[in-house]
């Protein structure tokens, strides 16, 4: 009885501490990624003389490229273990989910392996994104008019 109580208290304390640590790590790593995104945006604006919209597209492609390459080389998972959600919530997580599912099912062939499984995890993002965007777009169109 006493042991169980002790263990529960110990467990609570332990997970509490690592939760705070995880949250701080996620905040810092996500923040650094956001900072880097803004820097890259300005860099592309100045170097290629692009508008901010075009430069942002190029910036997102860069991030997707880096995340896919890191996943393909096999060290993205280690980075996620270290930096937590800071790498999963930005667009890098989207690219990572597609590349990793493509590589996991590679041995089952081009059609049944890569073709059918590439959207396994990214599919839910696209599905719910499109459904919610359609739903909210209808609301906006009928209530507020188009922007």
């Amino acid at each position: 009885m006493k042991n169980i109580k002790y263990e529960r208290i110990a467990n609570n304390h332990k997970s509490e501490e690592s939760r705070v640590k995880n949250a701080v790590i996620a905040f810092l790593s996500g923040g650094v990624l956001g900072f880097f995104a803004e820097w890259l945006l300005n860099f592309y604006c100045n170097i290629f003389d692009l508008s901010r919209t075009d430069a942002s597209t190029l910036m997102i492609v860069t991030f997707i490229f880096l995340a896919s390459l890191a996943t393909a080389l096999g060290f993205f998972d280690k980075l996620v273990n270290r930096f937590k959600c800071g790498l999963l919530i930005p667009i890098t997580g989207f690219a990572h989910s597609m590349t990793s599912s493509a590589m996991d099912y590679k041995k089952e062939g081009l059609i049944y392996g890569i073709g059918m499984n590439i959207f396994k995890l990214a599919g839910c993002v696209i599905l719910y994104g499109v459904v919610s965007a359609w739903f909210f777009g209808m609301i906006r169109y009928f209530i507020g008019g188009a922007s």
Partner: protein
Amino acid sequence: MLYFNSFLFCGFICLIAQLILDNSKLTPGHITSLFVVIGAFLDTFSIYDFIIKKVGGGALVPITSFGHSLIHGALAKTNSMGFIGIFMGMFDLTATGITAAIIFSFVFALIFKPRN
């Protein structure tokens, strides 16, 4: 100032995600889907546009920006096409991201050998 805002906003989004992940049974798949829906919701009345104006690049990187781009393209198309524009313009802005993700992941999956 934009750099500092980018840092704060992107970090804040990741912080919320990490808190949800640690304190509930939701998986990263649930959280990314949830955040896309939140992004689309925030753009319904142009709140996310305001955030992007204030924050800059940091607001374009989190997955919430994906939902924002979907609905933003759809609404922009309704100006010229009316109701059917919601269907036509849905992928206008996100096409680059999705195409890049498909191309890179396919090419890398072909080239590299999976570890473990």
